[in-house]
Structures are given as C-alpha cells and as structure tokens.
C-alpha cells in the first residue's frame, strides 16, 4: 500500500509541474475551431475549409464580417457585354514568396476551377463561367456562358492561387503548404490538430497585429470552452447557446455573435399526403411558436424569418411579407378543414450539430406539433445518410436544412427550382421569375423578381421558415477588434491581444 501511495504521489507530483509560458516577445493568437477541413486544398465547399484557406489566400472580391462585398485583389470591375466582365487588378500585391501577383495567376485559377477533373467544390458559385483571358498584367476578362449577374459575388469564394507555385511544386504540395497573398503565411499544418501561421508583414491591407496565429481543432464544445476559460486559446468558434451566460460571468471572456445569412427551414414532402395539402402546411406554420424557440433555445440570438426564405439583410428580401403569428387554435381549425389524419406519426429528419442547436430546435418544433395533436418525432441521421437520401429526394415528410444566401437571393432561391434537383415543391411562376432574375444585370429588376418569389413562398409554404441562424463566437477579454463573421470566416488581421 505504501508503495502504491508513493508511486501515486510520484505520478501526481510530476503532473503538478507546469510548462514554461511561451515567449512574451511574440504575440501569439490561438483560435479554437470546432471542425477542421481534412487538408488545405482550395475549393472544398465548406465554411470551415474556406475559413482556413482565406488566412493565406485572397479572392478577387471579398466579403466583410457583415457580408458586404468589397474589392480585394480586384480593385474594380465592369461589364464589357452581357457575358464578359472586366476586372482591374490591384497593383503591387506580392505572393508570400515575394513574386508579383498578376493577371496570369487569375487566369490560371479560373482555368483550374472550371476543369471538372479538379473537382473544385465551389465551382457552382461561378458555374456559368467558361473562361478567362489576360488583357494586360493587371487586367483580366472573365466570360460566362449566359448572363450571370452574381459573378462578382460568387468570386468571393474563389481563392486566387499562384501559377508559378503550382509550376514549381505541382498540385500536391499546396494542399499542405499553401502559398498565397493573404494576411498570414502557412508554417505548419498538422491535420486534425493545428495550423500554425506567421504574420505576412507585407500584406496589402496592412500587416496583422499579431506575430503568430495558431488555429487548433477542438471538436468537443465543453473542451473548447475549457480551453478559452483557462486561457489556452483566445477565440473559440461555435459556442453552444446555453453556456453564453457562464462565459460572460467568467469575466475572462465575452460572447460575440452575428446573424448569418443562413435560413433554417423545415421542408415538407409536398408530393405526398398530408403535406401535399397547402392548408396542412399553413396550419403547421401557425402551430409553432418561433418567438419562444428563439428566446429560449437561441437565447435571443439570430432572427425569426419573416415568412420567407431570405434573411432581412439579404438582397431580394421582401419587407412586406411577415411571419405568421403563433395561433394554435387557428392551426387546429385549419387541420380540421384539411381533414388531417392525426393518427400517423410525422418524422422530422435532421442532422446533429450541422446547424446551431439543430436537434434542439427540431425537438422543440416536434413538441409544439404534439400540442396541436400531430404526432411528430425527430429522427437524427448521420450526414452521409442524410445526403444520400437528399439526392434521392427521399427525406420523409419533414426535414431540416439551412440555406445560405450569402447576401444575394440567387444563392438560396435556386434550391427551390426544378433544375437544382433539391426541391419536390414546384411552382411555374417561381421558376419563371428565377430565370428572369438570373438573366439580367439590372439590379432593380432582379430585386422585384425575388420579392415576388418571396410572396409565392409565403403563400405556398414549401417549407416552414424558422430562423436566420446566428454564428456565435467567444473571445478572451484580452482580444481587441475581433468581430463575428456572418459567413463564419475568421478575419483576424485587425485583431490584437494585450
């Protein structure tokens, strides 16, 4: 026993030693991310990937934290014809290896993106592009197959890569050691663990305020919060809503959140009873108390969708359409009129952790549907199963999904058209308006078309429109100038630490 106690004391004694603090000279910013991409290859269509990619790369046009589009590597652009756009590039921008950024790099990137063999995930963002031509070293023309009014917005997700770097190292090396024009320079990438970068002192928007950036993957929310409170990391992503109060009361960190452009909706199978009946769909909308869910489950973060797919700040939003009020009596009455069969249980399919509080919200909705005598249950499925059933358009009666509009109605409304192969609901006028909005560069015409589409959706209820999802971060009180991003991309060049 004595021996055991001694050895235990020895082991625990060893534990007590604390590692030496990092050099005080260097300002190191450490971020705790929830998910990591598998590699640093460009074009993987996920925000977690893009968030890391854009530390080392810049696009031609970029979004800011609020989702506004601002010039980046392109200083300005204009349309030359219906299908050709001219981009004037920023002069004097240097790649991390010191070489000059030119139009050749833009052409190289566009060619790479549109080659199907590249399997570039974000190709759909600029799907209508069919090529780029170099006009002079600082001017490039991008041509499209048809009129494509959202080209400049779509380009915000296309990181511009260096032609000479690919020529030198091939296509494999950049997946681990990316080299771009961005605010930070890649140093070390350890998959599943950490991404270490140093500041790009020559960054064209000004050098970052910290010397080193470390982004660590901490998948477990409880661990992420522990790392923030213990001071190991200064910023964390994906904060569960229920711990906001505790983080704020810790006096060490604060919560920063912003509504995103993602609309969380519950989509019905409108082909089959009971949801082929518009009355039933309308009834469900009255049966769910969105205000209570927002206040209690989302702790007042995020916005209630106003009876339409688009969030209030999105281009195409219709201010005259309003969310239906919570009215269970009316819901019951409508259900009665529709001759709704109450005996069959209705499944709500959702993934877990894909969107903020997704399972919680699904369960809360199911609970509210039970109050109007609809037997609803929640079926949580794993992502691959979800995606497979989704492509087959067999999602059961109701499923949860979030549509990102990225501040232009086109990106979200397309998913309710026939061509996108994601919607079982069909509406001829909606289809017509979508094509109309896409085939003109005139913003006023486009806006009008989208607003009418919102009215149609409100009347028809192809989905129950729930919330504009917030993105929730927490940052140590030592961190200054950090802003939550509506598109979940870390923008850290202005961030400083005391």
């Amino acid at each position, binding site marked *: 026993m004595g021996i055991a106690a001694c050895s235990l004391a020895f082991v625990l004694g060893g534990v007590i030693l604390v590692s030496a603090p990092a050099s005080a000279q260097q300002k190191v910013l450490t971020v705790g991310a929830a998910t990591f991409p598998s590699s640093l290859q460009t074009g993987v269509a996920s925000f977690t990937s893009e968030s890391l990619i854009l530390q080392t790369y810049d696009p031609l046009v970029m979004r800011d934290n609020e989702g506004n589009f601002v010039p980046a590597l392109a200083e300005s652009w204009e349309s030359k014809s219906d299908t050709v756009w001219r981009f004037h590039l920023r002069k004097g921008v240097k790649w991390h290896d010191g070489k000059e950024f030119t139009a050749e790099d833009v052409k190289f990137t566009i060619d790479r993106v549109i080659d199907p063999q590249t399997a570039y995930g974000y190709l759909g963002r600029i799907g209508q592009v069919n090529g780029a031509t170099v006009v002079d070293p600082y001017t490039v023309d991008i041509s499209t197959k048809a009129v494509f009014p959202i080209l400049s917005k779509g380009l915000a997700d296309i990181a511009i890569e260096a032609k000479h770097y690919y020529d030198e190292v091939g296509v494999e090396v950049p997946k681990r050691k990316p080299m771009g024009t961005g605010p930070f320079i890649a140093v070390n990438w350890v998959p599943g663990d950490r991404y270490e970068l140093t500041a790009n002192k020559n960054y064209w928007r000004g050098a970052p305020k910290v010397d080193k950036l470390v982004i660590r993957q901490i998948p477990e929310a409880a661990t992420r919060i522990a790392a923030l409170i213990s001071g190991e990391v200064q910023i964390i992503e994906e904060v*569960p809503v*229920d711990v906001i109060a505790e983080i704020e009361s810790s006096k060490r960190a604060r919560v920063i959140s912003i509504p995103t452009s993602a609309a969380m909706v519950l989509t019905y199978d409108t082909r089959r009873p009971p949801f082929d009946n518009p009355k039933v769909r309308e009834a469900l909308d009255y049966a769910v108390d969105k205000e209570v869910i927002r206040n209690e489950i989302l702790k007042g973060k995020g916005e209630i969708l106003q009876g339409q797919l688009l969030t209030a700040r999105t281009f195409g939003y219709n201010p005259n359409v309003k969310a239906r009020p919570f009215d269970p009596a009316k819901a019951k009455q409508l259900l009665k009129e529709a001759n709704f069969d109450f005996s069959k249980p209705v499944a709500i399919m959702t993934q877990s952790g894909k969107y903020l509080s997704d399972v*919680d919200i699904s369960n809360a909705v199911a609970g509210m549907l039970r109050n109007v005598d609809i037997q609803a249950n*929640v079926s949580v499925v794993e992502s691959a199963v979800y995606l497979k059933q989704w492509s087959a358009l067999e999602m059961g009666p109701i499923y949860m999904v979030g549509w990102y509009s990225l501040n232009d109605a086109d990106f979200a409304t397309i998913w309710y058209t026939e061509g996108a192969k994601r919607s079982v609901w069909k509406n001829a006028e909606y289809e017509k308006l979508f094509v109309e909005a896409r085939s003109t560069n005139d913003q006023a015409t486009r806006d009008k078309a989208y607003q009418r589409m919102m009215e149609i959706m409100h009347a028809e209820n192809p989905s129950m429109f729930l919330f504009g999802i917030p993105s929730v971060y927490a940052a140590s009180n030592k961190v200054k100038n950090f802003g939550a991003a509506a598109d979940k991309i870390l923008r850290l060049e202005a961030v400083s630490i005391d």
Partner: protein
Amino acid sequence: MKRSLFGKRFKIVLGAGIIVAMCLLAALAPYLAPYDPLQQDLLRRLKPPFFMAGGTAKNLLGTDNYGRDLLSRLIFGTQTSIMVGTASMALSCILGAIAGLIAGYKGGRIEQLIMRFADAHMAFPDVLFAIIMAAAFGGSTFNLILVLGISGWMIYARLVFGLVRSLKHRSFVEAAVSYGGGDRYVMSRHLLPQIVPILTVVATLQVAQMILQEAALSFLGLGLPPPAPTWGNILAEGRDRMFGAPWIANCAGIAIILIVFGINMFGNGLREYLDPQAKQR
C-alpha cells in the same frame, strides 16, 4: 477461516441490492416518475436541482434543455438502459456460447473456422465496429441491441470453447458419448451445465460493459434517437452544457456509475464465490 466484512459476501449483497433497486425503479417507472419524461416546457428549461441555488421542489433534479423533468427522464432511462444492456448481453451470450460449443465439441475444420474468426474479430476494436454499423444502419432499439450484441460474441465463444475442450475428455462426457448420446444431447445435458456458472459471471459483468457502450455510442450521436430518455442520451445532451448546467450530465453520470458499479460488484463477488480455486482457500 475467518469471515471478513469486506469479502465476496459483502460484494454480492451490495451489488444485488443496487441491481434489485434499479430493476424496481425500471418496473415502477410510470408510477414513480413525477412527470411525463417527454413533456417539454421551453419556458422552464435548464432549471437547477433543488439543492442548488435557484432550484425548486417542483423539479427535484432540475430540468433539461427542453424543460423536461430530469428525475422523470432518469427514472424512465433505467428501463431503456437495463433493457438494452441485458438484451444485447443475451444476444452475444447466445451467439458466442453456440459458436464456442460447436467449435469445442466438433473440433477440426469447424473449430478452426469459428475460432479464427473470433480471433480476427477480437483484433478489431469493437467500438469501431459498433460505430460503423450504427452509422450505417441508424439508431433504433433493435439496431442498437444487434450492434452491441454482435460486437461481444467472441468473448463467450473463446470462453466456452476453452471450457468445452478441457471438459471433452473428462470421463463423464466420454461415457455419455460411448453410450450413444447424440451431439446435441451431450452438449446440452453434460457440457452446458458445467459452463453455466462461469458464463453467468462473465455475462453479468458484460451487462455493465453494454450500458457503458450504449453511453459511448450516444456520445458519438449513434445511440437511440432522441427524445428517448436513455442515460447515454441524457449524458450526451448534458455534456455541451457542462459549464452552464452541469447537473444534467452529472446526474446521468452518477446513475450510470451506480448501476455499473452494482453490476460489477455483484459479478466480481460471484466470481470469487464460484471460482473453485478460490474456494479451496
């Protein structure tokens, strides 16, 4: 030999006491639980238990993230956890015992086939296997029991195989064979009774393993689909709220510890009691 207060007798009594109490709780859940375990009340969510600041006697152990009564959910969770644990144990016990009996008794090529397969399965992390199956086929009580049951069969197969092989050449078995006892007769009348005691111990301990395994799968989101009140689900739902509402995960954790502890105590006591070598001393 001097009786000791902390010997096997104590373990068996303590363990059995806990197990019986839990089974009673499960059986009487509808009468004991103060509320419907599925009834949500979003305006009363994350209320702390009565012994913490802000808690009331209305919800003795507080409420969860949908305002459901935690005590009621834990009481109903006893049903699911015990059921899943026992059923999956029974499945792997039956599968394993049959495989082991056949392999040990028949020998030859069949033995090679079954036992090498068991070896291979042994060298494959069972959690990983359960994860792949659960991810692929989704969560339902039936699937969960199937997955857990299949992932544990080889322990029994090896155990039974070893015992059968050592028993096969003992005189009473040979006698039964020479009197013309058929395979099935010899297996069920002479071999099985010899194996049952040890099998009981291993099976008891495995129920505890299965309950923990269920919790592990729930952690990965592969357990029973919500809103089923299993302890694993409650624990998994509580873990994101360990900072804000620690009582959810902690109450479920303590419930799991309690039953697994009881089962382990009982199993270990039983082992000491049944082990013939230990008896000699």
